[in-house]
């Protein structure tokens, strides 16, 4: 699943480390999610969305390839 995390993070001048602390995961997990190698659980997706002040569907893009 594609996502806009890197884009939103850099817009806000956040480092991966800062985002990781804000959502309570490791920096490696942020890298994995940003690169689309891991799709987060609903709970983690919600925490990420809340950190950026957006809804989940504004950050995670569910496309046809995910069906």
């Amino acid at each position: 699943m594609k996502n806009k995390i890197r884009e939103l993070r850099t817009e806000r001048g956040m480092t991966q480390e800062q985002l990781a602390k804000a959502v309570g995961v490791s920096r490696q997990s942020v890298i994995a999610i940003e690169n689309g190698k891991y799709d987060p659980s609903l709970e983690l997706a919600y925490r990420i969305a809340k950190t950026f002040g957006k809804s989940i569907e504004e950050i995670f893009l569910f496309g046809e390839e995910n069906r």
Partner: protein
Amino acid sequence: MEYAGLLGGTALGLMGWLLGRAAARKKGGLDEVHRHVWRRARSASWYVTLIAIYVLLALGLLDVEIGLVPALAILMLVHLAGWSVSGAWFMAAMAEGDPAETRRTRLLLAAFIGIAILTGFAIVSALTGNWLFFLFSLVPVFFSTLLMHVAPRLTNKGNRSGT
């Protein structure tokens, strides 16, 4: 001496595991990605163990006497090594953004697996005095090399399942 090895090895292993977890917890490393990766690693380690069981059975058919305790020790070592190496492999695949770095990590891990297998079989060969054992190590080395080529594709497919 055997008891010292059995209990000491377990104690050291547990201590290392607990210290590792404590260090990871400080960095927020015990998160859902960590759980997901190590669950997959546990699953992968059973495939490695199955191959080891198959090799040991094949050796039994070829009249290579190993004994129950050494065979169980080999299986335990293979299982634990398979778990830790595949965990490190999957974690590297998850965290690395740089493809060159990921390739390097995989190459290092594959080299580690190959050397570990060869060393293990060389030890058993020396203990049993049967050098055919060392020859048979080529089979798992071949499988691990094959896995090195197949695993990246499987990793990319499998990593996407979140919870």
